[in-house]
């Protein structure tokens, strides 16, 4: 009996106590007691932590805000730079698309030689329909040359300077284009007006004119090459007691959005004025 010292006995008791506690905790018996003991500590720690973080934020956050503001400004700068680049690229893309389609058109008519030009302005007068292009006599542009796009007929060069030209659109009141109806052997005149509307005139009453009929240049008068698309018949006005029927024409070109054009440089306009009969006095 004397061989077990009191110290060893204390160790054994303590070991058994600990084992007992572990077993009790595994069985879930100790948890309520632990909760009662630990809850005040947890509450105190939470309170202390919140106060500490508030103080920490007080000293550190303003610096972070400044940094964030700087970073934000930097990113906004980058964003605006990128946005302007995107706009520039979109603009270039649109221009490239226009040039590609003009190139396609030029390839489809190999007999013609073209000068590509950008539209840089519009006639300030609301009554006249002219555009200004950035190529002039230095580039080989001459008065009377026909102007087209990949979509169809634009007009003809009306005035030329060394570096720019003025093009009379087919919607101009002074513009008269000899046209023919596609699929029919009938000639007519497409005339512009002050309001920019194009009217088809000089169409015989015998001709069957329908909305949607396509108009092409006929080449008569020697002002334009043949078979260039001009527009489409929209409204037909046929009055029995009139000599000719008329119709509104929807030009194929959106003149408001005209950006680039092709000047046909190998087309020679013919002045037929001397050949016209002179009325006898």
């Amino acid at each position, binding site marked *: 009996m004397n061989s077990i010292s009191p110290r060893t006995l204390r160790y054994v008791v303590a070991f058994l106590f600990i084992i007992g506690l572990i077993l009790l905790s595994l069985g879930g018996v100790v948890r309520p007691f632990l909760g009662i003991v630990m809850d005040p500590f947890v509450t105190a720690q939470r309170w202390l932590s919140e106060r500490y973080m508030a103080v920490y934020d007080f000293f550190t956050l303003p610096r972070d805000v400044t940094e964030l503001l700087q970073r934000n400004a930097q990113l906004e700068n980058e964003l605006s730079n990128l946005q302007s680049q995107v706009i520039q690229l979109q603009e270039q893309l649109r221009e490239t698309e226009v040039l590609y389609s003009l190139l396609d058109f030029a390839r489809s008519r190999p007999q013609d030689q073209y000068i590509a030009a950008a539209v840089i302005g519009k*006639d*300030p*007068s609301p*009554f006249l329909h002219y555009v200004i292009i950035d190529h002039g006599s230095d580039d080989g542009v001459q008065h009377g040359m026909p102007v087209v796009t990949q979509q169809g007929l634009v007009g003809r060069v009306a005035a030329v300077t060394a570096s720019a030209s003025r093009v009379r659109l087919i919607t101009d009141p*002074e513009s008269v284009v000899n046209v023919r109806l596609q699929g029919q052997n009938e000639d007519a005149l497409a005339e512009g007006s*002050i*309001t920019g509307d194009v009217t088809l005139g000089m169409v015989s009453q015998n001709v069957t004119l329908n909305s949607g009929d396509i108009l092409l240049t006929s080449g008569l008068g020697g002002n334009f090459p043949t078979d260039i698309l001009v527009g489409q018949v929209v409204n037909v006005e046929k009055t029995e007691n009139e000599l000719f029927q008329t119709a509104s024409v929807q030009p194929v070109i959106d003149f408001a959005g005209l950006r680039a054009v092709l000047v046909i440089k190998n087309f020679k306009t013919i002045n037929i004025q001397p050949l016209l009969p002179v009325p006898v006095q």
Partner: protein
Amino acid sequence: MISVIVSIPIMLILSVIQSVAVSRVNIMSGSADIILLAIVSLGVTEENRKIFIWALVGGIFISFISAMPAAAVITAYLVVAGITWIVHKGIWQSPILAILLSSFIGTVAKFIIDIIALQFLGINIDFPATIKMTLAPNLILNLFILFPIYSIMSDLAKWVAQKEEYEG
């Protein structure tokens, strides 16, 4: 003298803006006329006494760009300057009322001169349609941008007047 010198670059810039941008903004067939509005705006300021020179310079530049006969363009702007002068000196001293009235009468007067010029050119005009499609939108668009132009031109007139007093 400074007023005359300044009128050249200012009217040149306005003519380019007119051709490149303003003429492309249309309501029906009408568009605003910033040269006309600049003349009207200058005409109602006390500082500028050379409004006819500005009108002449503006008319010359526009006649370079436009297919309208130069005489018609220049005459139209000189008439607008005259109307503004009469309205401001004789009818309304208040600049705001004077520019509203002057721009309205000036737009109508310029329209009539343009129509007469087109008649001389032998162009057929459907008068009622032209009033509806051109004159009415012109008046509306001019009214829209009248006050921004006025604020810029009145500042410019003051600056020119200060320079002229300093030189004189």
